């Protein structure tokens, strides 16, 4: 049924038909009692939730194998694409929200409304420049000799490398400062827990930098005291305490995620958004 077509006109006709059918479907659903509508949505959620488990879990070498191979696995890519495309359409919602907030700042002359103007300018500029760079990099002149750039490429380079990348890297690098002040504040021997937190951090820190390694490098690498060398100790702790502890957390996290997934799948989730009658 879902076959691509060669003719451009047929293509447009079928697209129109699709829209029509969807609108009718939604219209019908809109006019049924909310209770039934909720049922429909629950069923849809359940069916959508069936796809991945069925595709993945039906074991090999059973009667069901051909079912899996022929009907479910080929849809992995299209479903991934469809999800990505539908999510991509929502980008407009976010941008709309941003624009509303900042337009309101400007129209009401709220404090700092100048920044909102800056927001609009930089957004539009970046948007135009990125699109231009993708679709028409040679808009004003063709890329010519070595060491030359077209104006579009130049603008994109300044906006992307000069502004976007620089800001991204700089905000990220604020962490160098924050981690120092956080360590200074948090590593106080008030309780056993805080002391252990500090001890773990200090050992790894010393195991990482040459200064720490130098402190214990006199312990021979072959002796039984080798484990006292900071880098060996931190490696051992990372592998033998950190690893099982993280795994222990993971056990719980994954079981928790599975429980949440089950509740959502079976529409058992309640409260807030999830439990609403509609």
């Amino acid at each position: 049924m879902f076959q691509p077509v060669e003719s451009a006109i047929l293509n447009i006709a079928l697209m129109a038909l699709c829209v029509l059918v969807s609108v009718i479907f939604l219209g019908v659903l809109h006019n049924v009692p909310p209770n039934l509508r909720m049922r429909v949505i629950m069923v849809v959620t359940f069916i959508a939730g069936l796809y991945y488990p069925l595709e993945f879990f039906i074991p090999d070498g059973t009667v069901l194998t051909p079912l899996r191979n022929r009907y479910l696995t080929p849809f992995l890519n299209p479903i991934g694409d469809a999800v990505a495309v539908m999510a991509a359409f929502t980008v407009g919602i976010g941008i709309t929200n941003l624009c509303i907030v900042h337009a309101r700042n400007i129209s009401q002359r709220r404090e700092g409304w100048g920044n909102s103007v800056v927001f609009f300018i930089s957004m539009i500029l970046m948007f135009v420049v990125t699109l231009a760079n993708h679709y028409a990099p040679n808009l004003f002149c063709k890329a010519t000799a070595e060491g030359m750039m077209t104006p579009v490429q130049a603008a994109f380079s300044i906006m992307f490398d000069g502004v976007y990348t620089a800001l991204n890297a700089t905000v990220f690098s604020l962490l160098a400062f924050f981690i120092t002040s956080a360590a200074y504040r948090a590593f106080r021997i008030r309780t056993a827990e805080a002391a252990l937190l500090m001890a773990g951090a200090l050992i790894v820190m010393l195991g990482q930098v040459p200064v720490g390694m130098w402190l214990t490098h006199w312990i021979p690498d072959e002796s039984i005291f080798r484990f006292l060398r900071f880098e060996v100790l931190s490696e051992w702790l990372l592998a033998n305490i950190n690893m099982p502890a993280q795994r222990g957390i993971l056990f719980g996290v994954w079981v928790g995620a599975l429980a949440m997934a089950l509740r959502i799948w079976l529409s058992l989730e309640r409260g807030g958004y999830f439990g609403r009658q509609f």
Partner: protein
Amino acid sequence: MEHAQLIHLLVIGVVSALILYGILSSLRGKELFIRRLAGIDAIEEAVGRATEMGRPILFSVGLGGVEIETFQALAIASYVARLAARYRNRVIIPVIDTVIYTIAEEALREAYAEAGHPEAFRPEDVRFLSGSQFAYASGVIGIMNRERVAANFFFGPFAAESLILAETGQSIGAIQIAGTASILQVPFFIAACDYTIIGEEFYAASAYLSRDPIHLGSVVGQDYSKIALAAFTLAGMIVATLATRWAELNGLLKFLTGGQ
């Protein structure tokens, strides 16, 4: 591994069955107990303090996109919003994902309505800031400073921006509570927040908060599942130990590990 092995099906089947069993037995009216979770008790206190100071609350769901962890975070956000709405305090939810933006908007509106103060809800308090991690972070620290928030909640999946948010919140003197399943960010929340909910506590939080029988039952089922998984691991270790002596057991071991 293109498709699952039998052992995977068995393990997931048992875990799911135990969770559902927990939920069912809870629905049948069995009395269930959940131990105290320190960080969660503090949520009410934080909301109360922000209200006393007459300053808003910020609830970040981190880098949450359309994933299970974000849904859980939003469930907690709803609870916080209901508490805050009771006192007509504001909850600002900055988000990074546009799909989540729509859900968060709905959730917040709903929470204010449920608390009986639909008029106190301000649509602009759910803000899409940016799809980019650090632009989002810079936006959130901007909001923290300008709105002079009194309480910060960080629930959901976080990455490097965790400490940027938490240190800024710390420096403006906000009371901060964090909860995440992103193990790598937990230490930074511990360092900079007043309370931190670790790993699975995050998933148990909504049960603790809502006392909803389904959630409570689910937590009980999760505990059963963990006991089962721990027993499975121990049994597997015993098999592995015996296999070092009797090589015939290697086949069984291979089955248990899913051929890995």
